């Protein structure tokens, strides 16, 4: 068993274990921290697959942004030290069954399916290539989605401010 395989399994364990703990932990703050582990594990997996840029984005946006945002909102809303309520037993049972069933079903389909890889020459996922394609207007250019996403982000920003803004009581 090579070192890289070992690393892969460690990452897989971190991702799955972090995810499981994140959805079962009863203290919400700890839950957020486990989510953080899971996301970092995914970033690690990106690095492992040689997508360095993607790993960096994952860490910056998810770990540095979204999870921090979530933790902030936890502080703002609930008492982070208290336990969350246990889920309804029957609901939990059915959810487990649904999850397990669906997982095994998907895995079974995956096992039955043969993936055919394309034979084209590999393109290095370097930051340089990403940057060129991102702003290219030609084939494999992503300038339009890029602009659209920028508008979306602007809209989301304004929307957040408007929603979360405290309305002053009228005099």
């Amino acid at each position, binding site marked *: 068993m090579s070192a890289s395989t070992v690393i892969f399994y460690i990452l897989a364990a971190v991702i799955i274990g972090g995810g499981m703990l994140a959805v079962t932990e009863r203290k919400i703050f700890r839950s957020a921290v486990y989510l953080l582990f899971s996301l970092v594990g995914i970033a690690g997996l990106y690095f492992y697959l040689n997508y360095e840029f993607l790993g960096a984005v994952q860490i910056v946006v998810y770990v540095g942004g979204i999870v921090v945002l979530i933790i902030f909102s936890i502080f703002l809303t609930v008492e982070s030290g208290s336990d969350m309520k246990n889920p309804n037993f029957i609901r939990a049972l059915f959810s487990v069954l649904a999850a397990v069933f669906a997982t095994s079903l998907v895995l079974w389909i995956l096992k039955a399916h043969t993936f055919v890889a394309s034979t084209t020459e590999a393109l290095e996922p370097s930051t340089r290539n990403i940057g060129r394609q991102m702003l290219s207007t030609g084939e494999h250019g992503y300038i339009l989605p890029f602009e659209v996403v920028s508008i979306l982000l602007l809209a989301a920003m304004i929307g957040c401010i408007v929603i979360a803004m*405290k309305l002053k009581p009228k005099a």
Partner: protein
Amino acid sequence: MNEIGLMHILVISTSLFFIGVYGFLTRRNMISMLMSVELILNAVNLNFVAFNKFLYPGQLSGLFFIIFNIAIAAAEAAVAIAIIINLYRNHRSIDINDATTMKF
């Protein structure tokens, strides 16, 4: 175990996806549900990476999808948290079952 391949990553992503689904189904706290949704999104992202890496190495489409996904996820999380905070202000609770004002 031999070489790490497509299947390994797909197994991880599938598991993570349904862990997220389980969390989404059982959690009653809205922030926890949001966290479960993030898990689901990441499972999807992982799939994109895997397919791009192992099946279509000649292009970067999967990668770009992930980038846009992350951007959209960030926007979504921001809006969701804004809504949750606003709800908390009005109801003093972020339990999904307490938000029944608009129910018929």
